[in-house]
């Protein structure tokens, strides 16, 4: 049993490392992408014009406005007490976003520790809008928290965005206001997922195209052995890539590791079984590498867009949220951010991990059952 699997694992490694293109694709490209993407994601959105409708006119609201202006992400183009002129500012493209602070903002925050503001952003450029929205949530949350901390309380601010995107979100704790802290874990997840899904979805169908699978199918190798022999090597590779990414993230981008790092790795180990299992499942069904590329890219696009990495999921329409509920990437992003950025532990992410484990077993079972040594 194990002897055959070990031989298959060795074979996959030999093939990966013998082909320089694959080796580069697997190890170098992710790091470069991580470096480029996380910088791009941070700096590419120029400071956006922000119009503030400050109905509260309190010292707290003034602090929030200060923080936004000083964040490097927004340029406060005006503060008005009423809604008048807001639409015009949008139309003139003077402002890309509008923040409305209701008049009992400071009072609510002081009394209950929670308050809400509404934030609307020009959604023409969806990705940038998402980034702005996420950034605003983080900055406002920090401001509110700072105020509360100085009084010795906790704080949460609900940001409600007006149509076209509707947002209800609780804010992340991100005291240094470093956007990278928020983005890099997400990018790391997406890169690991992309590589993992592409490499596994190619692997079985490639053997079908080459004809080498026939020589395996004519041996007494069981379906479980065969799939274990496909899962294991790519799981190890993906874990290595993830570790490299984590190292780059921590040492180059100073992403925080407030929670337990072993917990993050344990989650990654479970999560990767799900992603690679999906790749293998696609690969057992498809006949050509082209088919598999198409399906894999479609799935990746869907998974990544609905993962909460680039845009807050709360802003997505209902149907998208239903799809997102079945999106493993979303759950792993949640675990990463919760543990690394917010310092969460098993209590916060345990049930999500268990859910991923169930999904991993399910998807691998499906792949084994879908694979046939004898065609029908």
């Amino acid at each position, binding site marked *: 049993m194990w*002897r*055959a699997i*070990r*031989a*298959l694992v*060795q*074979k996959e490694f*030999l*093939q990966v490392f*013998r*082909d320089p293109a694959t080796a580069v694709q697997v190890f170098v490209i992710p790091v470069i992408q991580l470096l480029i993407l996380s910088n791009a994601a941070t700096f590419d959105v120029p400071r956006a014009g922000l119009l503030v409708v400050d109905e509260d006119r309190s010292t707290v609201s003034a602090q929030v406005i200060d923080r936004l202006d000083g964040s490097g992400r927004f340029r406060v183009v005006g503060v008005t007490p009423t809604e008048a002129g807001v639409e015009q500012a949008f139309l003139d493209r003077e402002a890309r976003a509008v923040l409305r602070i209701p008049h009992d903002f400071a009072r609510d925050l002081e009394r209950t520790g929670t308050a809400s503001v509404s934030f609307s952003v020009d959604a023409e450029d969806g990705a940038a809008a998402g980034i702005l929205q996420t950034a605003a949530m983080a900055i406002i949350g920090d401001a509110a928290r700072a105020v509360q901390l100085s009084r010795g309380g906790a704080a949460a601010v609900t940001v409600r965005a007006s149509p076209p995107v509707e947002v209800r979100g609780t804010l992340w704790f991100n005291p240094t206001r470093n956007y990278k802290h928020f983005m890099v874990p997400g990018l790391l997840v997406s890169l690991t997922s992309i590589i993992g899904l592409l490499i596994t979805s190619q692997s079985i169908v490639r053997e079908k195209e*080459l*004809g*080498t*699978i*026939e*020589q*395996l*199918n*004519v*041996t*007494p*190798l*069981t379906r479980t052995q065969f799939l274990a022999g496909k899962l294991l090597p790519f799981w190890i590779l993906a874990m290595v890539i993830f570790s490299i990414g984590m190292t780059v993230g921590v040492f180059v981008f100073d992403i925080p590791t407030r929670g337990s790092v072993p917990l993050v790795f344990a989650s990654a180990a479970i999560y990767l079984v799900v992603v690679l299992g999906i790749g293998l499942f696609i690969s057992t069904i498809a006949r050509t590498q082209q088919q598999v590329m198409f399906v894999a890219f479609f799935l990746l696009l869907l998974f990544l867009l609905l993962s909460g990495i680039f845009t807050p999921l709360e802003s997505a329409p209902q149907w998208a949220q239903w799809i997102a509920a079945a999106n493993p990437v979303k759950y792993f992003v949640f675990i990463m951010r919760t543990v690394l950025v917010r310092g969460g532990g098993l209590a916060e992410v345990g049930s999500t991990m268990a859910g991923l484990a169930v999904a991993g077993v399910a998807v691998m079972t499906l792949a084994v059952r879908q694979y046939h*040594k*004898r*065609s*029908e």
Partner: protein
Amino acid sequence: MNAPPDKAPPASPHTASAPLADSAPLAIDARGLTRRFGDFTAVNAITFDVRQGEVFGFLGANGAGKTTAMRMLIGLLEPTEGSAIVAGVDVVHDADAVRRRIGYMSQRFSLYDDLTVQENIRLFGAIYGLSDARIAERSEVLLARIGLLESRKELVRRLPLGWRQQLAFSVALLHEPQVLFLDEPTGGVDPITRRVFWELIYETAAAGTTVLVTTHYLDEAEYCDRLTIMVDGSIAVAGSPGEVKRALGVTTLDEAFLHLTRPAAAT
């Protein structure tokens, strides 16, 4: 049409002594084996048997259904109808048990060409459950026989076609199967290598392994103990080369083949 072998055919392991007794146990017993792809019948209710230790030839024009029939016998393709006992096991019901007892060399080269000779042998040896010592022993014997011992660290991709084919043949024999299935083992190889191949096939049969081999070379068919010629999915004629020629009233297998596959041209 086909280049005749440069020398006389190697002596058959059986015809030299006595032909296999009709009572020899069956290595393959196919009954009404049928395969349809949609409306198209690729293999149409073929019934034949192969005795243990026989070299059995499968002939037929391109698309006659040789590969399809073979794939059903080795558990790579589900038969639409019919049954087959291979090496004493029903392939429809227990394909894995059949797979343990057979070796297969596919028409299309299907070893890993980005692995070395030795790495391929180790992989398949481990999959068949051979111990490391046994793998070393077998690969020594098999590679020495085809003169590949020196090239064991070569990538398979770098080997000339004739050697690649002989390697595929050797890997199919690694676990000492009872029945060996060879799908056009000599396709595209030079006449010398073809001869070598048939010597290997005879050696294998002499050691007691049953060999089912497809070929387009009619001179090779003369080396078979028995053969069938398939036409459009059905067995048109079966028997020893002599019987086939007699049955069709022709003097060479070339004529027999033309007679069956292009009746107009033969008359």
